[in-house]
């Protein structure tokens, strides 16, 4: 909320105008896009994969779910969603087959045909990102990994989504909301595009209250990460921004209040790794 108070905003620990901030953030992600995944692995020692797995498990999507993954860039959440739905769908079909023991050959042949067209059970994920470079990397990854169906890539701004109202079952934003300039607008847009009963999930770096862990975390963040950034991605400044933006982001309770202000109900959060990361969840009821 405090961000929109005036023309002055924060970009990491600097103070800039709203327009400047958007521009700078765009440039950050433009430059890190190609090395985004590699950097994630090295900074978090691979733990970010676990965080994203936990997010999708918490979502527990059923086949037929429509997911909007905002700031989804390189597609990590989207791919996990597809894998999850595929395995749930397989289990469902197996259960159905078990109940239908006395099928004729005709019926069995039909059921196999059905399977081919509905391996995802109608689930779809739309990956939306404001940054063209990130989307490009994501599309390439999808091709390399063999994800062909149920996936679409849209260029869009979280503060002004190019979608109709009441469209999606689940809205996720993983490690993206920190970079949104007007968080309140993004939350309102999330509320708008979700169906009634839809779920908002936000995975983001948050505040560590444990003092010991907090000092270790600070040490690691400010001393190690920018160095890794320089060595691996050739970009010290972007990773300095990353670390600073984490410190400037509202803590768990404040973000929870902001989500409630956008109209979500049953808002709750779950700390991962003692608060290094938190998953916030809310429902449009």
């Amino acid at each position, binding site marked *: 909320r405090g961000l929109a108070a005036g023309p002055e905003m924060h970009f990491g620990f600097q103070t800039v105008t709203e327009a400047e901030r958007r521009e700078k953030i765009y440039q950050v992600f433009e430059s890190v896009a190609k090395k985004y995944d590699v950097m994630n692995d090295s900074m978090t020692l691979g733990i970010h994969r676990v965080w994203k797995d936990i997010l999708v498990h918490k979502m527990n999507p059923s086949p037929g779910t429509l997911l909007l993954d905002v700031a989804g860039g390189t597609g990590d959440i989207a791919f996990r969603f597809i894998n999850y739905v595929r395995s749930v769908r397989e289990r469902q079909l197996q259960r159905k087959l078990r109940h239908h023991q006395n099928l004729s050959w005709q019926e069995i042949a039909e059921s196999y045909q059905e399977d081919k067209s509905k391996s995802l059970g109608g689930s779809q994920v739309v990956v939306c990102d404001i940054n063209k470079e990130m989307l490009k990397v994501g599309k390439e990854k999808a091709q390399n990994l063999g994800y062909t169906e149920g996936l679409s890539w849209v260029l869009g701004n979280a503060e002004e989504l190019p979608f109709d109202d009441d469209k999606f079952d689940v809205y996720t934003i993983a490690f993206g909301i920190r970079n949104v300039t007007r968080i309140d607008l993004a939350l309102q847009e999330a509320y708008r595009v979700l169906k009634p009963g839809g779920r908002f999930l936000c995975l983001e770096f948050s505040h560590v209250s444990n003092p010991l862990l907090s000092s270790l975390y600070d040490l690691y963040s400010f001393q190690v990460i920018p160095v890794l950034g320089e060595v691996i991605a050739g970009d010290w400044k972007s990773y300095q921004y990353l670390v600073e933006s984490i410190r400037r982001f509202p803590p768990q309770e404040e973000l929870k209040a902001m989500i409630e202000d956008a*109209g979500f109900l049953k808002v709750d959060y779950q700390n991962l790794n003692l608060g290094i990361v938190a998953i916030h969840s809310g429902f449009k009821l």
Partner: protein
Amino acid sequence: KMAAAAAGSLRRAGWRLHLTLLASLSVLRCQLSVPQRALQASAVLRRVSDEQHKEPLASSSQQHFDSHPTDQQPEQEPQGPRPSSTGQGGQESEDYESEEQLQHRILTAALEFVPEHGWTAEAIAEGAKTLGLSAASAGMFRNDGSELILHFVSQCNTKLTELLEQEQKQVQLGEAEKKPLDQFLRDAVEARLRMLIPYIEKWPQALSVLLLPHNIPASLSLLTSMIDDIWHYAGDQSTDFNWYTRRAVLTGVYNTTELVMMQDSSPDFEDTWRFLENRVTDAMNMGNTANKVQSTGEALVQGLMGAAVTVSNAETRR
């Protein structure tokens, strides 16, 4: 920003907390200026509710709501909270009804899907869909279906209580005979167990979920209150038993009969009802035995006391 905070806090509090809202209104009054955020949010909600308008004003929580917005009217533009009070129906009536009430509605709708999907999040998702909500709202509940089962048990208990209440009224009005205790207990337990019949295939799964540590407090309390209810309606006849043994005995009868019912394949569960009849008869006899044991015990004690007095007298006389 204060207005936004106010609107947000109103929604957060839920209409259950109307009393605290009344108290805090005096503080909120000064802080309410032009509630642009409130306008925007309730405009969205109103739009959705226009499409699906069910029974918005019938719910009891409407009263709660009316008690305070009248205070707020002078401060806010008429469009302020008014839309959220009158313009919302259907599933947006959670702003009238509390989130809990919506959850109950979803769980009730989900029961229809239990025979097919079991007591699972899938059944809850299907239930939510019939109410026009996204399947994602099943995320409000645990994945193991605990809330669904507890909701069902609580519903059955309520139905049983209503049934017993009706029967009692009939007896009071002289329309029916007062049943002897064993008949009463048998009928009550049978009526309660019959409610499981539509879900009998998936009930063993439900029983195992109810035994999970995090569910035991709730399931135990539901069980004991049901048993207490039956004893309450059993009336004066129940003074044959001691209060503690009453609960234990009937709980034992109920639980064992329930387990037998899981395995019963006889037509209309007649084996189960015969088992029940035998257990209730045992329970009645046990009561007599207990009394006998007690009086025998008393007699014994008196005899011993007498013997002790005799001996001590003999001693002193010596």
